[in-house]
């Protein structure tokens, strides 16, 4: 469906070689920063730069002309040169066998009538050359599986399964900052810039068939051709989860979008209905979108809405029950045989219902054993586990206090941290074994990210949710998608 062959996207995301056009020796200029970032991410392909004068920057050979490049070794040109120089540059690149360009340069559609004329010319030339031209006026392209960080900003995220495309470059950075923080990484990320020749649906279409990508994540403001957007995103969502945030959902946001990307606004309720029809997971905020994508990337889809909350403290369970009641999930009544099985493991003061509140009754093996009984029960579709990291938080206070390591503190600190790590590992292991989502939530994930509990969740490759409410929201998105697929 895309107008670009898959090889052109491969050239963009997995180039054998890259040339940065318009390299500068000034560390404040895009022509330096992009070269720096490519090197800092450990890119292993062939790398060249071009500038007015030949030489060397950061140890990279700088040529005074594209014509001096070796033939057939470079797939991608990262363009920092002024808009007026780019037509000649792209022709020369095409002659060297370069299939894809990312244009960071500004001065196009965002820059008045003259810029719009330049942009139209750019698209015409790109089509004539058969070249995929991303941007212009974008931040760059990131592809951790290829150790590529060709962008004029930070960060370089860990590798993972989330493929990102955004109409606003800064949200690429926001999503990737979350990836750095949480450890749930990125397969591809591209800032569409003015999206002159390559649109958001084009990227998403590539992600839908890209083996490195498990879930697509996009930010859009405007949808120039609504029908085409609907048809194409529906085709994407039929193949992979597609999480979308739309800027300009309110009258105030629409005015801001009109001045940012010149986007026209539909009634937001029409956009919302379109998303439901297409099977798009629509998120209200950037963090909600990232967490939904991270959940799709790391948890199996639930087979039903029946959710059990496992908590070591009552208040958390109550608040989580409220959140579930407001979602499409179901706070399922505990099956009799499960209640009986839990009675065997727990002293009488436990809640004896869902949420399963252990009420401080746990001993060494209680949590892993109880969790296995719950996750393994056939009438339970998903589990949210609360209370991870409490022991390690106390351990941290002991470790930093004046009595450590005496009075048996070293031993108990080790024990607490081992236990929390074990709980996190158990949650991931049970989720895989029973093919059900098991989400772990604690504010320690952000207040004390080094705590052994959240750290072990990160090490398991999963997201440790900063609150139970956010875990419920993410799980709700998974169930909505599962249900959408089930009835179609």
């Amino acid at each position, binding site marked *: 469906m895309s107008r670009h062959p898959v090889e052109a996207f491969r050239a963009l995301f997995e180039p054998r070689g890259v040339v940065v056009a318009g390299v500068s020796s000034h560390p404040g200029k895009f022509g330096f920063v992009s070269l720096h970032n490519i090197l800092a991410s450990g890119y292993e392909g062939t790398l060249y730069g071009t500038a007015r004068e030949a030489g060397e920057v950061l140890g990279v050979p700088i040529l005074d002309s594209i014509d001096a490049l070796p033939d057939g070794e470079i797939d991608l040109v990262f363009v920092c040169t002024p808009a007026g120089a780019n037509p000649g540059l792209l022709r020369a690149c095409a002659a060297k066998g370069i299939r894809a360009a990312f244009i960071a340069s500004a001065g196009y559609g965002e820059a008045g009538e003259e810029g719009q004329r330049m942009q139209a010319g750019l698209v015409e030339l790109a089509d004539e050359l058969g070249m995929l031209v991303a941007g212009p006026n974008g931040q760059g392209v990131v592809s951790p599986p290829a150790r590529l960080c060709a962008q004029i900003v930070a960060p370089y995220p860990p590798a993972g399964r989330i493929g990102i495309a955004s109409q606003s470059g800064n949200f690429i950075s926001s999503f990737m900052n979350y990836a750095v923080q949480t450890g749930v990484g990125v397969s591809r990320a591209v800032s569409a810039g003015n999206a002159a020749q390559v649109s958001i649906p084009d990227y998403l279409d590539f992600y839908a068939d890209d083996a490195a990508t498990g879930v697509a994540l996009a930010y859009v403001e405007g*949808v120039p051709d609504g*029908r085409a957007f609907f048809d194409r995103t529906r085709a994407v969502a039929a193949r992979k989860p597609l999480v979308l945030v739309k800027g300009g959902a309110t009258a105030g946001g629409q005015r801001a979008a009109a001045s940012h990307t010149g986007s*026209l606004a539909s009634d937001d*309720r*029409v956009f919302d*209905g379109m998303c439901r*029809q297409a099977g798009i997971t629509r998120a209200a905020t950037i963090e909600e979108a990232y967490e939904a994508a991270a959940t799709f990337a790391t948890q199996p889809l639930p087979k039903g809405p029946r959710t059990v909350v496992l908590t070591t403290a009552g208040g958390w369970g109550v608040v989580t029950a409220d959140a579930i009641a407001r979602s499409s999930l179901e706070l399922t009544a505990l099956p009799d045989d499960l209640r009986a099985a839990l009675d065997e493991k727990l002293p009488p003061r436990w809640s004896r219902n869902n949420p399963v509140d252990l009420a401080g009754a746990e001993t060494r093996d209680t949590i892993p054993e109880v969790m296995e009984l719950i996750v393994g029960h056939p009438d339970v579709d998903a589990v949210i586990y609360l209370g991870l990291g409490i022991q390690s938080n106390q351990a941290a206070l002991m470790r930093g206090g004046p009595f450590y390591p005496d009075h048996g503190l070293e031993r108990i600190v080790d024990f607490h941290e081992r236990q929390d790590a074990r709980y996190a590992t158990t949650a991931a292991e049970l989720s895989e074994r029973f093919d059900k989502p098991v989400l772990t939530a604690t504010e320690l994930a952000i207040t004390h990210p080094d705590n052994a509990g959240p750290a072990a969740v990160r090490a398991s490759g999963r997201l440790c949710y900063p609150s139970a409410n956010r875990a419920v929201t993410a799980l709700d998105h998974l169930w909505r998608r599962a249900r959408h697929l089930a009835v179609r």
Partner: protein
Amino acid sequence: MPTLSEADSKALLATHGVAFPPERKVPTADAAAAAAEQVGLPVVVKLGGDGIAHKTERGLVRLNLADVEAVRAAAAELLAAARPDDGEVHLLVAPMQRGNRELIAGLHHDEQFGMTVMLGVGGVLAEAVADVTFRLVPITETDAAEMIDDLATQRLLGDFRGEPAVDRGALAAVLLGLSRASEADPSIVAADLNPLIVVDGAPVAVDALVEVAR
């Protein structure tokens, strides 16, 4: 954009499967009285015509007429209320529909996404409540069912004040009929079924207004 008369609007949508209660289109007050006996009292009588789009605002709808004399009198008044620019007019006589719940459904054109099917909660508070959902034409049965699930006021769709739950299948059929009409007739730029009165659980379209591009 020209609007079709209520009778023509209903006829057009009915060919695509939107169900309407039986009603008679008659020219005179005497014929209206006879029609009222045929469709069953009490009835509603309205003045119709191609130029008449806002009947309620002009007082051209007479509700709950219980006997033939009341029908005849109301019909005569309505015919007298016609204005020269209304063009050719007629009377519509239909059985009075009663229900505590009102919904609205329709077709609307969106600048970006084209024709959409709409379902919402109706009645005098509809605009303030703004409980409404859209899908792009064409919709499937699944889409129609999900539209009904989308309404925030789900309690309104269950058992309500002694009336049974809304027949979701019948409501979905209305939405599918609208979608089919839009697909089959690209000249339709808007349609409104307002209100859809829920009568013993069944959604009944008592008014229809179709706008066409000419």
